[in-house]
């Protein structure tokens, strides 16, 4: 078992290194993305500031806590873009028979697929993410201690897994429908709407939906509420831990769907 993990980690590292090297071949693309993402961040943040300035607070959340929530959201967005953006190309891979190469190698297909295209450019999404995040931390006067750091790391891991799982889930549908681009776009919108703003601004039924059925509220809302110490929860376990758990379960489920879909894979004409 240990040997197997070591094997997979070593291949993952090699794949990542190659992906980074390939992308370094085109340095101007990297610079372009840094600029574009920073602009996007400024606009996004200005929107939030405008909203809070106009309404005072949103669903009981003040400007400071919203800044922190927004920071967490942008940061987890950056992470998922780095690790999982290639899932957007899953329909293309099905139509063009791009999975052939992975099937011919003695390793898991999804594993190879995810690490083959490690997205260095996605790191540019992390820069604004980190800036907003630290700004938010300062605004809520978050104490830097072990517990808080651990909770934030749990939350970010869980958030990345939940978002990644939903993307893999959408991408895997392409084994059945061939084209899922619209669906993926819609889900992307949902992520942002649910994770950037407090869930309490939405109607009750939406809150139930995003808590239990399409658990997007666990990306940021619940764990952040917990970290900021807003209203005591009924469950004795920290929300960040539950987020991580939700992430792991969803990720496992999406991998399962991918495996089932793979049986339907027909490759492409020669």
């Amino acid at each position, binding site marked *: 078992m240990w040997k197997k993990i070591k*094997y997979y980690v*070593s*291949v993952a590292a*090699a*794949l990542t290194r*190659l992906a980074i*090297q*390939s992308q370094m*071949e085109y340095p101007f693309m990297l610079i372009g993305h840094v600029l574009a993402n920073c602009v996007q961040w400024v606009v996004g943040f200005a929107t939030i500031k405008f909203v809070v300035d106009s309404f005072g607070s949103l669903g009981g959340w003040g400007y400071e806590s919203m800044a922190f929530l927004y920071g967490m959201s942008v940061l987890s967005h950056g992470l998922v873009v780095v690790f999982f953006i290639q899932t957007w190309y899953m329909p293309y891979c099905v139509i063009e028979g791009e*999975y*052939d*190469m992975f*099937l*011919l*190698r*003695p*390793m898991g297909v999804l594993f190879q697929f995810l690490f083959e295209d490690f997205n260095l450019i996605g790191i540019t999404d992390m820069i604004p993410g980190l800036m907003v995040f630290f700004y938010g931390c300062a605004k809520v006067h978050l104490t830097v201690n072990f517990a808080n750091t651990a909770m934030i790391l749990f939350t970010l891991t869980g958030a990345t897994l939940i978002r990644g799982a939903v993307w893999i889930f959408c991408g895997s549908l392409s084994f059945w429908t061939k084209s899922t681009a619209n669906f993926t776009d819609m889900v992307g919108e949902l992520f942002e709407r649910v994770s950037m703003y407090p869930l309490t601004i939405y109607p009750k039924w939406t809150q139930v939906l995003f808590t239990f059925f399409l658990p997007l509220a666990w990306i940021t809302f619940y764990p952040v509420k917990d970290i900021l110490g807003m209203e005591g929860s009924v469950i004795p376990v920290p929300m960040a831990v539950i987020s991580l758990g939700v992430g792991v379960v969803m990720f496992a489920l999406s991998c399962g769907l991918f495996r089932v879909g793979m*049986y339907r*894979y*027909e*490759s492409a*004409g*020669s």
Partner: protein
Amino acid sequence: MNIIEVSHLVKEYKKVKKDKGLKGAVKNLFVQDVEYVRAVNDISFEIEKGDIVAYIGPNGAGKSTTVKMLSGIMQPTSGEILINGISPQKERKRVVKNLGVVFGQRSQLNWNLRLGETFDLLKRIYQIDDALYEKNIEMLDEIFKISEFIDTPVRQLSLGQRMRGDLVAAMLHSPEILFLDEPTIGLDVEAKYSVRKFIKEINERSKTTIILTTHDLGDVQELCRRLIIINDGKIIEDGSLDELVDRIAPYRQLVIDFYRPAMIRHPKAELVSVEEARAVYKFRKDEITAAQLIEDISHTAPIKEVGLQEAKIDDIIRTAYQQGRGAEDSTARQ
């Protein structure tokens, strides 16, 4: 020993018939005409260890589909495949460890990076230990001469070099079986020649079993001891090229130029045409040799020059394709 065993292999595709125009598109949303097409229709064969087999057939005959099922990429609708006694559908990872596959139309090399990077990655993926890796690289370099361009980014390689790179990549983990899907497609005469030479050498040195699909009959002639022809999803010929030639085109033609116009008949050859001093004879290889025929005729009239015409391999294969189709039609009519 049989390294590959295929029995009653079937692959069925669902084909949806689309109606014409906008009206059709709307109708197809609710009602679909689905028909099932058998790309591979009940195929069985065995391949012995160390053999080179050509798997040929016209476009859409089911060649690539078969290779993809053999290598675990696709699931068969029914039937069984055993590679080294293991099913690629049930234990893909174990089977592909022992498989090298090259698709001529597709590359597994990392487009942006130097060729060597892909090799390093494969070394890790196949867990090749350093000593074996060094040994294999050295051997493959001797055959394919890759050290000339191992540090060049793949995107800058010529098609011939890229194909050599792909062949090396497929051979690094010393697989026992090699599937080559149109390995010489698009290559110039020189590159084709060298790729064929390499394939031969690999087979001789490492006793690698090779299955080759191709449209280039030169590949078949130069490389393969055995030929499997598939058409419309069924195997229509299976045997050596010589056998096939003997059966489909048992006749040869002898062209004789006499000094003077002559009309000489021979009991074992048919006189096809006479044009001034040139006569053309058609005879069966198994009834008389060309040498005997020339000798017999030269007793009657002095011969200036002779020429022997074999049936062209292209024509033979085309006849084989048509025969297969004809047989199919006639069974359908019955």
